[in-house]
């Protein structure tokens, strides 16, 4: 459903793995484009799939920029 909506609008939700910002960027299914984060210019921009990601590990916050404890 979300995919269909995205395809219709020509944009999709992305997350910058460097600065953590979430953004709407142009997106055409199947088309490979050079993308960059408008905030930090990183190309590590990952498309967020409709399902929310579950926590990576117990006790580890998978959000970018989060500090981790338990060394």
């Amino acid at each position, binding site marked *: 459903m979300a995919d269909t909506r995205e395809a219709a609008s020509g944009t999709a939700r992305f997350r910058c*793995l*460097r600065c953590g910002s979430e953004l709407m960027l142009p997106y055409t299914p199947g088309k490979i484009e050079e993308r*960059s984060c408008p905030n930090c210019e990183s190309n590590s921009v990952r498309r967020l*799939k409709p399902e929310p990601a579950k926590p990576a*590990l117990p006790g580890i916050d998978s959000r970018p920029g989060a500090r981790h404890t338990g060394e």
Partner: protein
Amino acid sequence: MADVGRHPNIELLTLAEVRQVSGHVGEFKVKVHQRARHVDVRECTACGDCVKVCPQLRPDEFNVGAAQRHAIYQAFPQAVPAAYYLESADCLGLNPIACGKCAEACEKKCIDLNEPDRDLEFEVGAIVVATGMEAFDPFDVREFGYGRLPDVVTAMEFERLASSGGPTSGEVVRFSDGRRPHSIAFVQCVGSRCEPPGNPYCGNICCMNTVKDALVLKDHWPDIDVKVFYIDLRAFGKGFEEMLRRSRQLGVDYIRGIPGEIEEATDGGLVLHVENTELGRVEKHKVDMVVLATGVQPRAEARSLQHLLSLQLHTEGFLLEAHPKLQPVDSPIRGIFYAGCAEGPKDIKESVTQASAAAARAIRLTSQGSIPAEPHTASVIEEKCTACGACVRVCPYKAIEWEKGKPAHVVQAVCAGCGTCAAECRFDAILAHKFTDEQLISQVEAALADRPEEKTLVFACNWCSYAAGDTAGISRLQYPARQVLVRTMCSGRVDEKHILRAFELGAPMVLVSGCHFADCHYINANRQTQKRVERLWDRLEQWGIRPERLHLEWISSAQGQRFAKTMQEIEKHRARVTRREIAETKRILKEQRKAKVRAKKNG
């Protein structure tokens, strides 16, 4: 042109379209569709008897519609071959209504109304792409009134008006009333160095074309008042500054500023509203005629040509060269060369220089008798190949031959050595020479042998990101010294297993870096890198490893600052990865490896 037409070793095919190109350097197979000319070029003496009787009139394309031609015509006086051509779409004799007057009038009987189109096939060793460019159409730049105001013309239209062989025999006149203008304004950079609908790049030829036109005007009609509106004048060629100076001496008025609007004056002239940026004031200039110095742009067919020859387009739409400084004539595909504006805007001198270079490159290549292969090409290990065809799909050079059910085969003369096929092969059936899996993994292992948790492993492509590291070093830019670089020819060579091995050995962060999409030295191999990294982000997340630990960056060789900044930012991420997280990652990957082995055993 005449020399080409007469040369015994050159076969000139006019009215021809390349439909298909297959094969590779030294053995290209080219299929050409040639439309019927309906005139025998060996017999036609261009006497013009046929033209006199032809009843059909059409706008003359060469004179940009300012004159008319017949259905049978010669494109322009110096056209080669020097023979007439019957445009079948315009001719009455080829339609149901029979005309045939031209055939009757031709004494030598060299007109054949029934001549069919031809499909030809050639085998050639090298190809030179010289498809040229087209002028920007200023119709959509509404503020200049082109198409609405008859006395606003393009530089090309002015060229035909001022030409002694043109529709007015060299008399410069206004389209509105046929009278000679007393004042002419040239507006520079129309469709160049601007926002859409224009193009962002410099047209290269417009400044000097305007200076030349201004000189022509002043030489023939010194009383005509000539004004040139410009952003800046680019007279950087040999003798060009002298031409510019001479035009100033003859009274050409150069005004720095591009008109915001051109409108019709009440008494029939044209008024240009312009901010004079030298004097810092808004001015009105009244003239009789305006010439728009339109920029150039890639031909509309460039995209289909790109697909036909597996070439790459620059972001501006021109064909991308193998290397902008060291191989400006070569395409990324071996055996294909560029001449002229197909590769970028250039003037006649530059086009001739490039054409000579392209011809020399093609001759050097084809006269050798053999073609040396790159040292780092790929080859298929036939015993391991499952004939799945994945390598064929990702090869940017179409260097891999494959038939269903048979092992793939890499044509060594065509392979450029990007290694994308080796990274894509799930069965490790492709050997990327000099950059084998064993060699790359050995480098990863050596890099992470000591205190891996303090390091970031960087896969850097030879041409751009690795060179950007050099640029950063030469520029003495500071960045943390915790990054260890592993060089590959192309980022497309970086396999998932290389990245996972780095994580398995305790790397907190991995960066895959390569050329920007427009700069990829292997046509488009880095698109596969992006696909692969995107897949791996998903997989890492599924396994419980943060995707934020794998970064992807496109850094060009000139972007030393970007390289340094990227390393600084990645170091911040690295510092946040704990020993516990690294240990957990190792455990997860170990389990994944075991599961993979189990799955393999179970078939």
